[in-house]
């Protein structure tokens, strides 16, 4: 499971343990192997799973906009109060799904959460931002995205995995949800970063200036 999503699942389970949440539903979009990811979530304490089956070439071009539309539709159908996701996926590092889902639902968003508390029917969320920590209040229903320091996820122990086999996983397809998965972005190329050139040791500053001028770095 994507590490940030693991943190999100852990937070959801903790909210349930604190009696702030009543039921947790986990969603995964992908081929048959996504069921294993859902089993891990179920083993951590999620109540039921929804597997949105996307496989083959359709899966290769699945992008955050599609996932956001799927999550938005499911959130509405399930009448969810909180949608919690990891802040980004470690394969594409997009960091878009939470934000787009919130926009589609017209819900407030609390991204990069490092602490979540419930106060008077609203969520008080501490966010990690470049300048430090920012605390905001959002009305429910809301979308939250989990950052690294939110919690340390529990292990999915084997007895829980075995028990999770009995928890239900519903299978749907993007078409059932009315989501068109045609690609909106085309990947033109993927390249390795340029190989690092060897450095050159120069004897004195004058040489350095000569080299800099030669390289056109200095006029």
């Amino acid at each position, binding site marked *: 499971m994507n590490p940030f999503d693991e943190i999100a699942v852990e937070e959801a389970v903790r909210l349930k343990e604190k009696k702030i949440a009543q039921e947790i539903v986990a969603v995964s979009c992908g081929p048959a192997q996504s069921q294993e990811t859902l089993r891990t979530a179920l083993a951590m304490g999620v109540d039921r799973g929804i597997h949105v089956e996307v496989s083959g070439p359709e899966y290769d071009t699945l992008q955050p906009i599609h996932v956001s539309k799927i999550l938005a539709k499911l959130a509405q159908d399930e009448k969810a109060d909180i949608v919690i996701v990891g802040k980004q996926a470690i394969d594409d590092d997009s960091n878009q799904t939470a934000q787009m889902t919130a926009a589609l639902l017209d819900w407030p968003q609390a991204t990069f959460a490092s602490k979540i508390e419930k106060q008077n029917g609203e969520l008080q969320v501490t966010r990690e931002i470049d300048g430090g920590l920012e605390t905001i209040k959002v009305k429910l229903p809301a979308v939250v995205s989990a950052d690294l320091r939110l919690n*340390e*996820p*529990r*292990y999915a*122990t*084997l*007895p829980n*995995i*075995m028990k999770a086999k009995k928890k239900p996983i519903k299978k749907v397809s993007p078409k059932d949800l009315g989501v068109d998965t045609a690609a909106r972005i085309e990947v033109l190329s993927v390249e390795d970063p340029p190989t690092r050139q060897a450095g050159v040791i120069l004897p004195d500053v004058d040489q350095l200036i000569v080299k800099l001028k030669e390289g056109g770095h200095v006029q």
Partner: protein
Amino acid sequence: MHAARQAACRGNYLASGHAHCCQGSTSFSRIDTYSAAMRYSATLRKMRGLSWLAKRYYSEQIFPKITTHYSIVPRETDPRWKDVNMERFGDEADVLIVGGGPAGMSAAIRLKQLAQQNSKELRVCLVEKSAEIGGHILSGACVDPVALNELIPDWKDKGAPLNTPVTTDRFSILTETSRIPVPILPGFPLRNHGNYVVRLGHVVRWLGEQAEALGVEMYPGYAASEVLYHEDGSVKGVATNDVGIAKDGSPKDNFERGMELLAKCTIFAEGCHGHLAKQLFQKFSLREKCEPQTYGIGLKELWEVDPSKHRPGTVEHTVGWPLDAHTYGGSFLYHLNEPTPMIAVGFAIGLDYSNPYISPFREFQKFKHHPSVKPIFEGGKRIAYGARALNEGGFQSIPKLTFPGGCLVGCSAGFLNVPKIKGTHNAMKSGMLAAESAFEALTDENSKSETLGLEPKSYEDKIRNSWVWSELKSIRNVRPSFHNPFGLYGGLLYSGITMLIRGKEPWTLSHGDPDHKRLKPASECKPIEYPKPDGVISFDLLTSVALTGTNHEGDQPPHLTLKDDTVPVKRNLAVFNGPEQRFCPAGVYEFVPLEDTSGQRLQINAQNCIHCKTCDIKDPSQNINWVVPEGGGGPAYNGM
């Protein structure tokens, strides 16, 4: 502080009178508080004699504490574990299989097939330490489909990934500059007609899918860490690893005890030099009547080559250069029939080598530069790397296979056919035979077991009556024949003869000393100058390790445990110049200078480990005991 106390205790039984003097509270009955017991200085003051000895011989500065794993540092007397609930949840199956490789999978599938055929309900569970089925599988591999044909005759229709039938077979002897072809006569085990080049990881993954479809419960990502016994001494199952233990051995907040997986019969299929099999050999004296197992290390890379050089179905083997006449080993190079022009190339070295300066990894990299080998890599790209120990003992080293409560299959027992360079077919067949035997033991109403754990008694007979036995017997003298004054050349000559007469000679050669006793002191051997990797065809170790995708949870006790933390420097480094820094194919062992004194210490980079088991085998002091890390860790091979 805990560290030096540990070291002091281990070395000074005389002074203390009993081994866990200062760990537990036994000798300090007056001390009730937890923190007082922990205070090192208070402890030392009470044991004045011990303190002098501790500073003299076991100063933490010279021999820093390395091993914190609970198999060496017991938790029962460790104060940090005093209030931790150590209860375990248990579940029972009919048969439990430890290890999801070809042997384990074949056993699982066969059991379910038998259950179906006989309309019986059988709960079969399989645990595998790799995060995904096939993730820890590494092999050449050129597979003889004889066992698969028996297990799943319609494997082709079911989509088994055996895509590359062997078309060309070459065997050569390399010298530094040339290549001497050796004809492969019909009847030689090395002949590969009818065999397939495969990516064994993918085959195992496919076998896993077949097993799941038949209803086998598979649990990848969970490592079997402990064998459990009934009161009558028979095996009752295994316990999976505990999680959430910090690097220093203390419990973390998310500590969770492993689970007990119990079964009427437990089949151990851990592969070459399994760590639980090692314990079973001891406990049930399974190796009393056979020779010690001998091993090799196999390193492998996958390359995408220039399509013009790619000839799918080509199988090439070499012996000779870069190894000298007295070091057993050779290379393989197989052209696969995959969507991209892929080749599998690798090198195996017998772990009975005597020169501690040998680095198997660097021999492999050197081999690729041979003038007849190099061209294939030019214009190509390396996409994978890995390594694993393999069995070479064959017939002479087959142990007793069954014990009350279970049995050993596959490379855990050791059925690899060395001259044929194949073990998968024997492993699979042994899994199938064990399944049949276990099924008999489980369902035969007339058989009365003396022990609670069922022993599949007919398994050993089934093996003896099968082609596995006759095959291994016919080539039993090939490998040991290399221990002669002419080394490689004497061995090749004898092997040629014995293979022609199908091993009918009345004698059986012995392997001699076990591998770990074969190292000569460094002072008697010449250091080897290996060429620097060029980054195009040959590579450095750490770049290669990155390709294995290996990872482990960082905050856990190192799973390469040392029985005695002082031995690596005192013996391995002093006498053998630290061979572990050379034979480990993942750079786990490093001798680094100490901070303030002139001297060195062993640094164990446990996170690099690729679970090859070579260190446990080759350590001349047999001080390294490989135990299983948290499940899910280790390499992430894809179709190796």
